């Protein structure tokens, strides 16, 4: 059944071509039906593929050009449960976004569906690819579709600015990735990841450190990590709601699976003795990203920008999980990715409903105006609490696994930081919800700054459909932690993801992957620490939301001065972002150059 794998890419790309090419030949409803049908089909195919590789991963060679004498001459897809599972989530989110668009962007120009499908195909290709140049092409294809979708309502300045900053920073990141892969190709003479790892094994050098810095920072830019995250808030604040849902739920996370795949197939080999040195910098970046995202979310009044920072916060937590470099941490990241995708998509879709109904997504403008929206309020608060991770809800299981991973390394201090970051982002969302749905708190702007609302983009809105899509996404995201057997499966999948020896043998020598034992369907228990942290997070999130609703008074206001400076750094000017990109690459590169031998 490995023939299923290329279909995940071929089907959306072909449909996109038909939809875009047959634009003047077919009526609009055929195009929309084709788009939606393709989304459903890819979701089902990806789920079948994931089920197929549950026992052991497989390698698919395009055109049957397999390896000859241990040398990869073709291009392959490495199909294992984590990549295939990511494809399921990507396809599901795009499908929900397309269904939502039925009631949201009806009158929009027709390239919309083609662009969404293009992004879907490219993201699936990236999640499965085992060839570094193909990774580059898929990444650029997905990003390009993203730039066009961000600037979709180009009659306004905000979307144009967001799309331009998104395009410029990500295009540069693409060039940085290309430079890194050129250096790797020059050193190893191959573009295949497994072959690269095999050639570099035991041969660390300055060149490899430079190449690793370049490809990792490029992927972290796509993944919106500090200090490469600036574009994300600008772009996510202005794109149409369903597009935002796709960006926040799945596209940002592509950078993370890229880092994970490149680390475990390639860079683990030359830096085998220094794994912690590589991991510790990623860990620091992850924690800094998580905290910054949380703090910045608290300082926003524009709901989508707030959500963008909440995404950045959780991206940081997920990078932390990867940076622990163990199977528990990676499994935690994978599980958190699934629940985060559902919850964040639900929240972005909910902002679309507010925008359509009240013409604004500004926390203070909407103060108390959505009191009658009981269902929407339920979705909003449930999803926000799910993102904090109250016991056995939402991202809880992901947190629990990352906690276990940190404890196994003896880094117990990682756990409170990741929980605290999630609390900050969650408190921002709860505060906004309390203002909008209950009319609590005042309307004093203070540090939240001026209103940056854009003109509403929606016409012909169908509320039950929109609400249904948001509720479905939230329900999926909330229930992941209680799905029986998911923790064990994620861990075993992460284990085989990290097994470079087995992957090298099956990619270069055609040996089958080792078969994993049948796992039980049981809900995983969690450590005492995790339960305590989770309960504390629940209390703390309510407290922080309450305090931030009232605003700080008196001497406590001095706490806000650094926050103001932090906010001023996010200037919205592309040149500043490029400077940060350059500084980030130079800093991380020199840290690795001095610490890796």
């Amino acid at each position: 059944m490995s023939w299923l794998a290329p279909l995940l890419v071929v089907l959306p790309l072909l449909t996109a071509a038909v939809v875009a090419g047959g634009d003047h030949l077919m009526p609009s409803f055929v195009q929309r039906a084709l788009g939606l049908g393709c989304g459903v089909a890819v979701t089902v195919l990806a789920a079948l593929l994931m089920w197929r590789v549950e026992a052991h991963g497989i390698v698919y060679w395009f055109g049957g050009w397999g390896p000859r004498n241990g040398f990869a001459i073709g291009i392959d897809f490495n199909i294992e449960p984590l990549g295939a599972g990511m494809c399921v989530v990507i396809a599901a989110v795009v499908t929900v976004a397309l269904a939502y668009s039925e009631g949201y962007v009806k009158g929009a120009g027709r390239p919309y569906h083609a662009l969404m499908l293009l992004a879907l195909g490219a993201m699936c290709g990236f999640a499965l690819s085992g060839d570094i140049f193909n990774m580059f092409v898929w990444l650029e294809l997905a990003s390009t579709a993203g730039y066009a979708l961000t600037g979709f309502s180009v009659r306004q300045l905000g979307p144009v600015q967001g799309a331009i900053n998104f395009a410029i920073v990500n295009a540069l990141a693409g060039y940085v990735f290309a430079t890194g892969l050129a250096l790797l190709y020059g050193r190893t003479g191959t573009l295949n990841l497994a072959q690269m790892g095999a050639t570099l094994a035991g041969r660390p050098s300055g060149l490899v450190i430079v190449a690793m810095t370049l490809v990792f920072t490029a992927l972290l830019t796509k993944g919106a990590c500090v200090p490469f995250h600036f574009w994300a808030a600008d772009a996510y604040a202005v794109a149409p709601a369903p597009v935002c849902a796709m960006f926040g739920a799945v596209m940002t996370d592509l950078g993370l699976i890229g880092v994970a795949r490149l680390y475990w197939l390639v860079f683990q080999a030359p830096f085998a003795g220094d794994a912690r040195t590589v991991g510790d910098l990623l860990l620091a970046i992850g924690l800094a990203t998580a905290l910054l995202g949380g703090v910045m979310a608290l300082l926003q009044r524009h709901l989508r920008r707030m959500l963008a920072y909440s995404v950045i916060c959780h991206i940081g937590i997920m990078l932390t999980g990867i940076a622990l470099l163990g199977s528990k941490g990676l499994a935690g990241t994978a599980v958190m990715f699934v629940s985060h995708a559902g919850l964040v998509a639900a929240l972005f879709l909910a902002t679309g409903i507010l925008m359509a109904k009240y013409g604004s997504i500004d926390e203070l403008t909407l103060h108390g105006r959505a009191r009658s929206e009981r269902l929407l309020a339920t979705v909003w608060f449930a999803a926000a609490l799910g993102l904090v991770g109250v016991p056995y809800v939402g991202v809880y299981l992901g947190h629990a696994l990352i906690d276990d991973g940190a404890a196994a390394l003896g880094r117990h201090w990682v756990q409170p930081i990741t929980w605290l970051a999630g609390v900050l982002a969650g408190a921002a969302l709860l505060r906004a919800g309390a203002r909008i749905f209950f009319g609590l708190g005042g309307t004093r702007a203070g540090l939240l700054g001026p209103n940056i609302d854009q003109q509403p983009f929606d016409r012909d809105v169908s509320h039950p459909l929109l609400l249904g899509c948001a509720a479905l996404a939230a329900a999926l995201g909330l229930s992941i932690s209680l799905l029986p057997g998911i923790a064990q499966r994620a861990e075993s999948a992460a284990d085989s993801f990290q097994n470079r020896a087995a992957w090298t043998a099956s990619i270069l020598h055609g040996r089958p992957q080792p078969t994993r034992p049948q796992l039980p369907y049981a809900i995983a228990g969690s450590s005492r620490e995790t339960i305590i942290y989770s309960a504390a997070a629940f209390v703390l999130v309510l407290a922080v939301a309450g305090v931030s609703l009232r605003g700080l008074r008196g001497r406590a206001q001095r706490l806000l001065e650094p926050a103001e400076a932090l906010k001023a750094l996010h200037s919205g000017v592309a040149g500043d972002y490029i400077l940060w990109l350059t500084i980030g690459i130079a800093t991380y590169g020199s840290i690795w150059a001095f610490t890796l031998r």
Partner: protein
Amino acid sequence: MSVLPYVSAAWICAVGLYGAITSRNLIHLALCLTVVQSSTYVLLLAIGYVNRGGAPIFKGVKLGTRAVDPVVQSLTLTDIVVSVTVVALILALALDAHKDAGSVDPDTLADVKG
């Protein structure tokens, strides 16, 4: 094989980045991006260069003839295609920015920030 192509690739990249960081005009900024991108072409071609190697066309050529690496050339071509798409999109957006704000200066376009 001289070190010159690598030095010039680094130089082109640095010049392009400097231009992009200090740019006050989106069209200029888009062109700076293509300059940065050009550094990857130079780097790729330098990596695949073989002294006294011919073009990698093997029809009617003796087996074992020295040729430059064809892989980097196709990578460069793909790279160019990707970059043209992105630059075209940025230029189109710059046009929209000009229509909306009457300016292509990134500083005055910073509508959403903080």
